[in-house]
């Protein structure tokens, strides 16, 4: 008697062991702690929180550790956990005008109330390797001598004698109005008017979306969309696949507090702080016979310090407003269905990668067809060959 050989289950369990081994790497090298990832890989954690749609630095760090630093796999872990969490309610809207600023830059004004605050940024680093980071344990991570103003002269041979830069010491202004609000006060900026009745925003993680999609759906999809995909789309808008001419009205990074109003208390309770990055792009808009010319807005908001994501989002947000402004929607970044269906990297990765699952039943169908069509074609050719001499006569 013959029975089928079955190895599927054992093979799958073995892959789990092998991935654990690969994740740990060389055991003579100390293991990373989640706290180390949280503190020293903050930008990676921010990306995982954005694309995982969950603000939790510790879980983002754990996800990165478990996923060996694979951002999409880490976002997937966050999402699969997030979906099981009970919903207790909706917070009050956060107020970014009240943000405790860490960084704030505007490209539209040389100076403005609150000033330009460069804060932590790689913008003006020269992308030269800081080899001191490679194997010296006591170097202050992130203080690149090319921007600290200290130069190499003040560091010793191992580069560990860095000091905090001077500008850290100056206190920031207490209030920093948002640039679009300044334009808005002059009537030059498209107003953000809540939908009538100010309904609760749509949640695409709970309900299926339909098209055309409203702006709340679009913004939610982009906030959790793939940074690379939005970057490419935003770039395409700039290069001409979408006719916008954006200026960075403002980018701000900092902490905002989250408040919740429990039904039985009736007043807001502070739940804690979130680090957010907000980008508002100012775009040209000609206006119409009825509407005086105004600037239009592209908006991006993301968790953590994530400027590239917020900027890309704000470019695409403006492009997707084509329908509202009666503009032609000829390009991918202007088409809500294209952007929303393809920006989710967990879905995209799953479907692309599912191609490695067995498909041999379907492939067998194709094999059967192509062999038969070729065979029939040869037979046809052969019979035509036979009849050819007669035809020549």
């Amino acid at each position, binding site marked *: *008697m*013959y*029975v*089928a*050989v*079955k*190895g*599927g*289950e054992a093979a799958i369990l073995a892959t789990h062991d092998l991935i654990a081994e690969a994740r740990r790497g060389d055991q003579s090298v100390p293991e990373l*702690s*989640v*706290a180390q990832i949280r503190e020293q890989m903050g930008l990676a954690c921010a990306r995982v929180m954005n694309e995982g749609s969950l*603000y*939790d630095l*510790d879980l983002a*760090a*754990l996800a990165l550790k478990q996923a060996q630093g694979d951002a999409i796999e880490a976002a997937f872990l966050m*999402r699969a956990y997030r*979906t*099981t*969490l*009970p*919903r*207790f*309610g*909706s917070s009050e809207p956060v107020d970014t005008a009240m943000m405790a600023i860490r960084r704030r830059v505007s490209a539209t004004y040389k100076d403005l109330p609150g000033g330009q605050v460069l804060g932590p940024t790689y913008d003006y680093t020269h992308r030269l390797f800081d080899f001191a980071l490679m194997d010296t344990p006591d170097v202050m991570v992130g203080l690149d001598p090319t921007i600290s103003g200290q130069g190499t002269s003040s560091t010793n041979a191992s580069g560990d004698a860095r000091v905090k830069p001077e500008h850290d010491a100056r206190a920031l202004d207490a209030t920093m109005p948002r640039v679009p609000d300044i334009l808005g006060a002059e009537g030059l900026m498209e107003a953000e008017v809540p939908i009538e009745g100010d309904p*609760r925003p749509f949640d695409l*993680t709970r*309900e*299926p*979306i*339909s*098209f055309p999609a409203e702006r709340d759906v679009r913004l939610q999809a982009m906030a959790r969309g793939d940074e690379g995909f939005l970057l490419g789309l935003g770039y395409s808008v700039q290069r001409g696949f979408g006719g916008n001419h954006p200026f960075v009205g403002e980018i701000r990074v900092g902490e905002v507090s989250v408040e*919740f109003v429990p*039904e*039985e*208390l009736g007043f807001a309770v502070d*739940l*804690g702080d979130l680090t957010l990055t907000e980008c508002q792009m100012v775009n040209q808009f000609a206006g119409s016979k009825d509407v005086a010319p105004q600037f239009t807005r592209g908006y991006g908001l993301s968790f953590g310090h994530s400027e590239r994501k917020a900027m890309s989002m704000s470019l695409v947000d403006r492009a997707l407003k084509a329908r509202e402004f009666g503009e032609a929607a000829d390009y991918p970044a202007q088409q809500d*269905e294209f952007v929303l269906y393809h920006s989710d990297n*967990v*879905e995209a*990765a799953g*479907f*692309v*990668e*599912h191609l490695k*699952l*067995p498909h*041999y*039943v*379907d492939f*067998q*169908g*194709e*094999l*059967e*067809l192509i062999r038969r*069509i070729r065979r*029939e074609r040869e037979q046809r050719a052969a019979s035509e060959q036979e009849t050819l001499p007669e035809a020549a006569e």
Partner: protein
Amino acid sequence: MMTAQTILSPHPEEPRSGVSKDAPARSETSFETKPPASPQDEGCGETKPAYNYAYLDEQTKRMIRRALLKAVAVPGYQVPFGSREMPLARGWGTGGIQITAAIIGPDDTLKVIDQGADDTTNAVSIRRFFQQTAAVKTTEATDEATIIQTRHRIPEAPLNPGQIMVYQVPMPEPLRKLEPREAETRKMHAWAEYGLMQVKLYENIARFGEVTTTYDYPVLVNGRYIMAPSPIPKFDNPKMHMSPSLQLFGAGREKRIYALPPHTSVKSLDFDDHPFRIQSWTEPCGLCGAGDSYLDEVITDDHGGRMFVCSDSHHCETRRGQGHRGAMLADASALHLVEETKP
């Protein structure tokens, strides 16, 4: 950091935790599927979740169940649903898994197949998921199963009344390859404007002499909706027509559910002068000798050697158990396809 613990009470717009039927499941019905955090993960070791029976929370199950009831009421129509993010990858059966999770109970016996076989890797993975989260009885025997979750095949043995087939669907929209925009295909279904599909099939015939679609071959359901049968080979399409079992289709990534009640007309699209026909092979299964089953091709060496074996592994085993022997059965143990056991 925001955690559930810091949040105090329900919001009127949100599901109320005080609703009586959403009380937590009994302790014996919750399953710890996460390993405890490692000691080195300091700063992170807070709560470990205990998942609900069959993973999904009760509110999600109700949402899926409501979609399923509308799906059976309008056979072949794709019902949008709030597809949840699952712990398995999109494209790997999350639609089928959500349906199974919403319908399964302690009285069920589950069979999971992929490519017709119970031991393909993803079938094993999904079966393990339900063993862990729903402590469900599983089987490889088609006739013992009350729920059969499948990817790409319908079992060879006729299905019975009371059995439920759950299909994993990657692309639920049969018109998608003709029209990429959902906003447009939805209108085409609404008005039963299916001319584009006829044109595509006919162009196919003009070019190759036949319709060259070999799997996911479109069908007309109950005379009204064109439906994607999921990527089953067209060999299996006739099994759907007037089947005595209930057939449910889940597309997780595309967030659609659709259904065929038992005894529903399912017609593969064709033309009078080019009738629908299914695949056939010139040789029978090398292991069990079956001449009427769907066959997989197995390459046996690098000199063009090959054999054909049943894709439905349980069907093939059953036949061998009944004494049917294929021409290559003895050779097959050398290929580790089967193993000879001493009686």
